[in-house]
């Protein structure tokens, strides 16, 4: 009688185990979602420049300000590559890509150099909205440079809102010039 009971119990346990295993094949009980897009084919040539941070979703956190302390500003070096934006937009337009590439090339050539991106707006938005919009414009180009393989921790952003117009005029031609990101190359102070 005792033996019967034990066999019964074992059979039941086996059935449960099997059922459980069978179930697992179809519908996992616990799923852990890993953030980021799926890893691409390693043979895919277009992904060769991609750094791990590009697979992270959302914006890239800022680099600590101390990393830029005491660096010498060179606003002339990249003055020709100012990136311009459409009205009330922080989307980097295709027409601006060659300028961004030129900035990326300059940073690739000199690994000790860093970059300050200054985001600016035309005068039409409200003041604090524009201060945020200027920052979004600077961050958008930082993100584009990161996609191009530049370490975003080498890049610092600042927004001047509408406080530093390139053209003080009040017409569309002035506004188009003022909706911009200026680039300032940063060099380590000599001797450091």
């Amino acid at each position, binding site marked *: 009688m005792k033996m019967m009971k034990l066999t019964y119990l074992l059979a039941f346990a086996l059935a449960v185990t099997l059922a459980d295993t069978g179930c697992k094949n179809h519908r996992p009980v616990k799923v852990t979602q890993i953030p980021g897009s799926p890893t691409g084919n390693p043979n895919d040539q277009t992904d060769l420049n991609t750094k791990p941070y590009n697979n992270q979703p959302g914006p890239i956190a800022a680099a600590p300000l101390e990393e830029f302390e005491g660096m010498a500003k060179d606003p002339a070096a990249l003055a020709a590559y100012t990136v311009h934006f459409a009205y009330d937009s922080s989307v980097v337009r295709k027409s601006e890509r060659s300028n961004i590439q030129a900035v990326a090339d300059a940073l690739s050539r000199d690994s000790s150099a860093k970059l300050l991106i200054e985001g600016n707006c035309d005068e039409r938005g409200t003041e604090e909205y524009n201060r945020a919009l200027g920052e979004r414009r600077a961050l958008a180009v930082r993100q584009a440079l990161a996609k191009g393989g530049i370490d975003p921790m080498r890049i610092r952003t600042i927004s001047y809102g509408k406080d*530093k117009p390139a053209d003080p005029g009040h017409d569309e031609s002035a506004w188009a010039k003022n909706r911009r990101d200026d680039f300032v190359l940063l060099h380590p102070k000599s001797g450091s």
Partner: protein
Amino acid sequence: MKNYQRFLKICLPIVFAAAAIHPVRGQNELTITREVPVIGNSKPIPVSLEGFSGEVADVLKLDLYVQGFSFTNADTAQYQISGTIAGSVQGRVVDRFAKSTILSHSYTGASLRRQAHAFADDIVQAITHKNGIAQTQIAFKVQSSTGNGEIFVADFDGHNAQSITHDNTIVAAPAWVPGRLAIYYTSYKRGNPDIFYHNLSTGQRHVVAGYSGLNTSAAVSPDGSKVAMILSKSGSPNVWICNADGTDLKRLTSSSEDSSPCWSPDGQWICFATKIADRRVLAKVPAGGGELQRIPTPGAPNPTEPDWSPDGKWIAFTSQTSEFDICVVPAGGGDPTVLVAGEDPSWSPNSRTLIFTRRTGGRYVLSVLDVFTKQVKDIARISGSDSQPAWAR
């Protein structure tokens, strides 16, 4: 500085005491039907002004005009205001309909200008049973053509202005600590837009938020213990909150286009401008964190720069079409009212008047608006472009 201490010692207790005691009119056999004030659509109260001249007359006219009074002769006025300026201001208000003197008072000390402001506040109190704004202060930004500027503090009418910074750098977004002589503002002094706390009594200041990227748009909680602000340290401009001294920093929003936070007077909510489903909207989020709720502004597109009225009833904001308009929407939901052309409204402590900026000739001037009658007047200009006003409350 003496003036501010005076303001703190004398005015604030009066403001709070008067706010706590809601005066009730004596019960008469006669039923007096009083017009319920409608935002943007109320008639001014006609008064006459006799016996004053020069600065005192100018002060009284501006103070009363921007609080919903209009000027007429003694025969058609509802209230007759009269007095003298023999060394000091003496004034009287007669209710012509009730045929009674409702105010008779003389003022000494300080300046004629301050005496006139005190008389204006007494007139408003006697006629409307509400606190006036004539002895309140504002903070704002004064910018030169270089883009650099300073933070100023002045009487609400722009007089007695003092520069509280001397940094010759870009400054922005002053915000008062409620009931205290202290403000927060943004300064680029250290080469980055950082948020400073500045004690006006001692002149001492320190950085409260100096993170990488943007630190701006500080807004102080009604009890002064917390600060909401815009930071971009995590890669996009968002609403963050911290203690008054900058500690215990927390991120409240994660949308990509946030700006201009302000507090509900009960300290429960933070209202701000953002973008949802590709549309610029106003939204609010619990100050302790949580779900974001939209504040609809039908018919007033592209809202930015919200400011919640101290009585909790209204949210003033800037709507952008081809131009900018000052609008007011019921905080609990409803249709917004478009008031006048302008930007960046800030409520007076009595929730009746707004100070805002107006563009003229490529610069900003400050203007004061009575939201009920829509009577509006520019205040005294400092220099350059005066903007981002914040009313002390």
